[in-house]
């Protein structure tokens, strides 16, 4: 009998781990759309704007996240050698990090972030959450410092960004209000598929969500060059050399003739 009772708190503990605070059943689908659905990278591509708009319940807040697929990344860690010289000291492997993470939020979310930093982590969004999720393999270094530096590097590249309060709220109609986020897509974006996620938030809880795909493709000259470089790499190498030599000859023809003659 006594042995049976010991199991009770254990069962409760396991049950509490499995229970998820998000009210999954009451989640609604947010009415949202983004424009365009396909980002075409052409010759003059220099980043672009993605418009994400839709409607949510009047008293709720909105978060828009454009997120890339999870990747693994190996970077060099800088450190002091001999206590004096800064240089690359070994590799650090980052796993489970998205290749793009751009977050826009409505004004109310700023207040939430200011008053309760933990709330963000519980929602499963934001940089702090990314920090928790990433796996880091490194020799003798503090995990938190590395995670922080990783976020810094990604933000410096424009691939991670947080724009608090930059979702504009439009007119109310009945119980709903419209929202619009002008999401800046950086020129450094890689080709592939991305997720555009819209979250509706009430009292620090996700009450509605919508998920859609965004495609990034190369077109025209960039697509041609990429295809040549990756599928016919030897030919590409020879062409690159030949064109370079030709450019050198042409320049010499236009600017070099006549004046050079005579040995030194």
């Amino acid at each position, binding site marked *: 009998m006594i042995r049976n009772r010991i199991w009770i708190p254990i069962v409760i503990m396991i049950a509490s781990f499995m229970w998820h605070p998000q009210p999954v059943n009451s989640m609604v689908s947010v009415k949202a759309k983004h424009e365009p659905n396909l980002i075409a990278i052409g010759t003059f591509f220099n980043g672009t704007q993605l418009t994400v708009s839709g409607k949510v319940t009047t008293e709720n807040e909105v978060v828009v996240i454009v997120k890339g697929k999870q990747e693994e990344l190996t970077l060099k860690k800088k450190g002091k050698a001999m206590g004096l010289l800064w240089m690359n000291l070994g590799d650090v492997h980052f796993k489970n990090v998205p290749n793009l993470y751009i977050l826009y939020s409505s004004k109310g979310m700023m207040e939430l972030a200011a008053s309760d930093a933990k709330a963000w982590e519980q929602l499963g969004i934001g940089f702090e959450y990314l920090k928790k999720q990433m796996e880091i393999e490194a020799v003798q270094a503090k995990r938190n410092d590395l995670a922080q530096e990783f976020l810094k590097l990604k933000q410096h590249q424009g691939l991670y960004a947080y724009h608090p309060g930059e979702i504009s709220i439009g007119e109310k109609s009945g119980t709903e209000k419209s929202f619009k986020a002008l999401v800046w897509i950086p020129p450094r974006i890689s080709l592939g598929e991305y997720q555009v996620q819209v979250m509706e938030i009430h009292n620090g809880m996700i009450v509605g969500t919508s998920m859609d795909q965004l495609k990034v493709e190369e077109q025209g000259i960039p697509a041609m060059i990429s295809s040549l470089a990756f599928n016919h790499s030897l030919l590409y190498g020879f062409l690159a050399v030949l064109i370079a030599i030709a*450019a050198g000859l042409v320049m010499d023809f236009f600017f070099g003739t006549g004046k050079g003659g005579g040995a030194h």
Partner: protein
Amino acid sequence: MFHLYLPIAGNSVNILLIFGLGGLVGILSGIFGVGGGFLMTPLLIMIGIPPTIAAASDSNQIVGASTSGTLAHYKMGNVDFKMGILLLIGGVIGGTLGVQVIKVLRQMGNADFLIKITYVLMLGFVGSYMFIESLQALKKKETPAIAAPQKQSKYAKLIGKLPWQTDFEKSGIRLSMLMPLVLGTFVGILAAIMGVGGGFIMVPVMVYLLRMPMHVVVGTSLFQILFTCVNVTIMQSYSNHTVDFILALILLLGSTLGAQFGAKISKKLKGDQLKILLASLVLIVMVKMLLDLLLTPHIMLALKGGH
């Protein structure tokens, strides 16, 4: 406005900025007979090009600039083909050896540390020596011919005893064929370890160890760099897909133009003036590298590759 997307680098750049960078490095290349990779690659990384792509595309660009520069110098009678080919053969052997040396260093760990220190010491030594030597030569214009041979007679005797002596007409010297082969190998090893074309080491080697006249040194160095960079461009395109042709092309337009002006400027300057300018440039790069090593970096992580 004026932005162009680079498909291999995966980023967009300002055309005018890249054109200007190309022009600047082309001028230096034409004046001094160096490829300029040591200058261009860090600048490209600074404007957001991934390090491996910056280095490989730069070598593609150097092909164009050195074609233009070699031709310009050839017309002035400044290219010693015989010497250049011998140095090139040595360079290929040295490069192959150097890649193996790097592998061993990587396995031992601390390769980066060794490379950086070699780089700074090399630049510091070469730069200071050239600077002091050419400064003295500029000051005592009347007497350099008397002072120099006395000092170097032992070295001159030694290399005079080597077999396979042959005339290098363009340079106006008689040397053993072993000299350029061995020195070319030595520079090839260092260049492979440091991850650069080697123009910076090759020029002082030709001036001080092969005793070639400065103007022939510049033309011959460019001739040799041309072949080295053709090889690097094809190899990098084939095995690593790191040559961004659009980037290289814009750099090229600037650098080939710059190289022509550079060659003309070079012609107007005297050998010692050229040496002292090159020495200053080497020393500036050395100081910049030293500062990078001493100042706390802004971000503690970096992308892999590059010099």
